[in-house]
């Protein structure tokens, strides 16, 4: 199995979720992260003092899939998350050794 992690713009989450659903992904996990990269943060002001916020809010998505599906998932994410503006994010792929569904104890691709 493969684990695919994507860092995307927060307001793209719904689109990505739907795109993944469309290619047959049954489950995924998401969470708020702060990103640092080419897309710069911004300057804030607080009671007269300026300060720079380097991190921008991003959403991270994780989905574990069968090897066969990995490429399609990658592509689906890239397409759904792209706005063409800096900061659209990244997709990373990793090996996943084992998966278990807690409820049933099913293992491997069946657990997904």
């Amino acid at each position, binding site marked *: 199995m493969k684990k695919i992690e994507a860092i995307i713009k*927060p*307001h793209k*989450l719904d689109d990505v979720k739907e795109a993944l659903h469309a290619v047959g992904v049954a489950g995924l996990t998401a969470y*708020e992260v702060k990103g640092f990269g080419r897309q710069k943060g*911004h*300057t*804030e*002001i607080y009671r007269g003092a*300026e300060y720079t916020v380097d991190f921008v*809010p991003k959403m991270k998505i994780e989905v574990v899939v069968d090897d066969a599906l990995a490429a399609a998932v990658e592509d689906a994410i890239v397409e759904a998350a792209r706005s063409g503006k800096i900061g659209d994010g990244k997709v990373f792929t990793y090996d996943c050794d084992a998966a278990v569904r807690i409820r049933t104890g099913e293992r491997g691709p069946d657990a997904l």
Partner: protein
Amino acid sequence: MDLQIALDTVWVLVAGMLVFFMNLGFGLVESGFARSKNTVNIISKNFVVFAVASIAFFVVGWGLMFGDGNGLLGLKGLFMLGGADNSPAVGDAYSGVYSAISWTGVPLMAKFFFQLAFAATAATIVSGAVAERIKYGSFIVFSFLLVAFVYPVIGHWIWGGGWLAELGFWDFAGSTVVHSTGAWAALAGVLVLGPRIGKFGKDGRARAIPGHNMTSAMTGAFILWLGWFGFNPGSTMAADPGAISHIVVTTSMAAAAGALAATATAWKILGKPDLGMTINGALGGLVGITAGCAFVSVGSAIIIGAIAGVIIVLGVMLLDRLKIDDPVGALAVHGMGGIFGTLAVGLFAQEAIAPGTTGDGLLFGGGLGLLGAQALGVLAVGAAVFGVSLALWLAIKATMGVRVSEEEELEGLDIGEHGNRAYPDFVQTETVA
């Protein structure tokens, strides 16, 4: 005699303070009903709007509203409360240029303070409806113009001895003068601005954009309810024990009935007792009773409040259908509630309750005369405020612009307009767009 003046003054000032405090109520309801990324912007608007209104009403608003003039506007003592005035003298003893408000025996400054608090309310109503997309500077400019010119002219028609008052139109504490005026000005702004990004889905259906803080909304609603105990009974501008006691009770019972009716309606239609509707319903009941609080019985007040509560729920849902995006329900509460409340005087007023004022309404055998005058006032004020506001909003749009950029709207107005965040220590998420 002197003691009467002192007591009336204490009452009017305390009532004015409560109305002033409504600014906090509006700030909390409106920011609570919006997203956290726009909180600094909304509370900035609601904080600064009282300051802007203070200057606008002082400089020229008061004079236009209460200065002696013709049926349309005040012409004397226009600027900076500068006209002759020997308040607290009343009746024949009064000599000055603000005769339309010489019936109350309190000092000029007490009159000004109380009326200022009302004027600011009209502007605050606008704030909520245009939230989450309006430029801060543009809102400030519009608020100034509203309180300096639009509100006082309408006020003159009704409370300044103008043509509507002459025609027998009654609006005790401002369902029309304050609430409808604010709502019509807001409606023009909402139409010029267009809906927030994400409010209407690709299928054209309204999507919920949940407010970020129901604790704020509830707090604001209670503060508004409290403030209305200044708004309505204070409009006596005298410590008349019978009248103020009666009005406190009609006001509160209408709010209670509005809250319950809205809760029940939402529960029935939506399947759950939606808190936002309960709150809007209470406020709708308050707006609804504002015109008639001194003229109707407690029983009628309960009925008026309950009908207003139902109207508000249906109104919020109707506006969603019409693709009119009002993040806080101000158009339903102050607009529909204000119109209904004004008409309700024509239905429920009773001569016996405030002898020598409205006479009986339709349901108490008084015929259609009063109702007709009320309807005329509703239409005239609606047309005038909406028309002029539309022109003002369009002029602002053409000059300084009225809506923030798409990028700024997505990121939130707090960073874009103010460079601040409301809650920097908390990890946040986005529910919608």
